[in-house]
């Protein structure tokens, strides 16, 4: 199966052969990552070009969140082997905020709550750090408002402290709102659908599609459920288990997964 997937990747990307002027590639090469001396990511290869849509699935504890955090430069993780590159340049030496400034966005599986930091202030600071100072405050505020309406977020949520007292669903939506405001080149969305009700899954998926389209964002969406994929059309699906990619393919492998569970792939891998 692995070989088949590689071929499939090559044919669709075709980016390798074309002269890339404006496009960007996030490339993960033979990545090994340790946390507290325990190896969690055990040699992963992944290539995401802008505008592409990848899905990453895998059993609990397989290392999906760890991969996302490693790409973002979480200080408690150590890359012991391999590389993470953006447009051919290693980003391993870059700090987290510098990676964000390159255009990488991580939606957290569990966003932190920070008391006292107003949500709008937070987005403003973040937007300022990544895209330069906000010039037109009113326009900025109305964009936040408009995006939160598109996400069907409750009015007034913007006035609260960062993620504080947000419901599970509100937290996820708040993350997607940030993605919209920050206009990333690559977005790793760590379970944008978990904890969302059925309607909210659709709303979130549609917003992610729209934002990715606006900005040509390359997406890596981590999920446990295929429901969200009713509204999003991934080109590539990667299955991860015990720190390794054990299977890859187009969205058709989700069907196999639904029918047979991870067992099918673990055996094959």
């Amino acid at each position: 199966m692995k070989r088949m997937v590689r071929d499939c990747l090559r044919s669709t990307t075709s980016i390798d052969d074309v002269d890339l002027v404006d496009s960007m590639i996030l490339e993960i090469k033979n990545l090994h990552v340790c946390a507290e001396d325990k190896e969690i990511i055990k040699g992963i290869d992944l290539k995401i070009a802008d505008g592409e849509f990848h899905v990453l699935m895998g059993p609990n504890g397989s290392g999906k969140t760890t991969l996302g955090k490693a790409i973002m430069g979480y200080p408690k993780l150590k890359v012991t082997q391999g590389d993470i590159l953006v447009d051919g340049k290693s980003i391993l030496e870059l700090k987290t905020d510098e990676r964000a400034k390159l255009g990488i966005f991580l939606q957290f599986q569990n966003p932190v709550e920070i008391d006292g930091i107003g949500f709008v202030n937070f987005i403003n600071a973040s937007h300022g750090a990544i895209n330069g100072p906000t010039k037109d405050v009113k326009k900025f505020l109305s964009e936040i408002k408009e995006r939160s309406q598109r996400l069907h977020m409750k009015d007034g949520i913007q006035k609260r402290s960062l993620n504080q007292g947000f419901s599970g669903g509100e937290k996820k939506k708040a993350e997607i709102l940030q993605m919209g405001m920050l206009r990333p080149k690559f977005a790793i969305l760590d379970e944008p659908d978990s904890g969302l009700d059925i309607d909210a899954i659709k709303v979130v998926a549609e917003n992610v599609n729209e934002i990715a389209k606006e900005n040509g964002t390359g997406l890596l969406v981590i999920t446990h459920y295929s429901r969200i994929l009713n509204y999003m059309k991934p080109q590539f699906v990667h299955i991860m288990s015990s720190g390794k990619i054990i299977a890859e393919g187009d969205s058709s492998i989700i069907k196999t997964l639904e029918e047979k569970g991870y067992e099918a792939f673990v055996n094959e891998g």
Partner: protein
Amino acid sequence: MEYNDFLSDAKGNYKKLPEEKSELYKKNYIHIPEEYVEFIDFESNANYGASDEFAIRSYEKGVAERMGIRFDLVVGSNFVSVPKNMHIEILEAGSMEKEFFDNKLFKSVDDKFAALINAKTEKIIRIKLGEGEKENFNIMFVNTSRQLFSQVICEVAEGAELNLFEWHGSDAQRSSVQGIINETKIEEMAKMNLVVLHNENENTAVLDMHRGTVKSHGSLVQHFAYIGGRITRARGSVDLNGSGAHTDNAEIVLGTLDQKMDICTDIVNAAKGSLALLDSKAVLSDTSRCILKGFASIKDGAIASRSFVHERGLLLDNTAKIDSIPGMSVDEYDVKATHSSATAPIDEESLFYLSSRGMNKTQANLLLVDGFLGSNITKIKDTRLVYAISSILHDKVINKKCGIVPELSKEIMLIETGNEEDGERLLEEHYKYR
């Protein structure tokens, strides 16, 4: 007590009293090292050296130009400007009557450093508002030599309203001391808003003493910003003596490098239906240190009174240290009182989250400082002061150094207050000031 007796009582008590008189805090106070006070001459009054009017005026000009604040009175080492308003009087301590000293709220026997300031203040500032009068004043205190001791006595008559802002700065080049006593008397139905900004430089030890009494249905709202000074020792209290009296005290502390702050505030409900609030917030980085002490007492007979003390600290570096010590004594049953204290270092997960959103450590700290202290700053009614204090905080988070008079922060501050009205007002005025 006549002036001469007052003076010798003050000198005697300064020599005699321990630095911390209160049994409660004997183990928790910050010592004022000798180098900040050893040069003080108690034999002669001609101890200020030459007046340095030029330096004082250029400091004043800097503040006016950068922050747009004009002052009605400027007090410097061996210099007092001519007050711009007749409600502000400059009194010669030596020519005051016995009654004046008898009525002072800070007696020298109360506190070693109150005694020091009593002994060393020659000119006393008095602001007296008559019934129903309303005034706003800004006073600047700037220490350009080694010492500056001042006293401000405010008397706000029935139904009057006084808004007073004090800027305390210093550009002392050697170890120096700046001492201030604020004594405030609020009569029935009168109101006072006092905003005190300490922005002294790193050579200065700050001694801040403030005491207020509030009569029936009067209100004393106070904001203290402790930002400057190498060492700060503040002792404040408010006594609610009349039924329905009210006080709201918001304190902020921002410590960087090796600053030391020792802030102690007592609020006393002594009358029926009185309401006392104290909210202290400290953010510390580097190896700075702060002791926050807040004490609420509810006296016998103060039925249906309410008292709330909150102390909170945020550590931006694990080398900084904060002790927060809230206390409470309640003699009356029919009251509502709470006190709470919480301090926490900023955790790694939160920092990672902020940096994943593009913020470096300084930018994250700015956001945290704004967020943590913001609610206690935006409560200040005069927006100009909100921006001035925020700008000083921002500059200090970035550059660490204290005592700087920065340009108003160019960065857009979308200060959120949790209160829509305040938020919109600030946003609107933002356009006016920039």
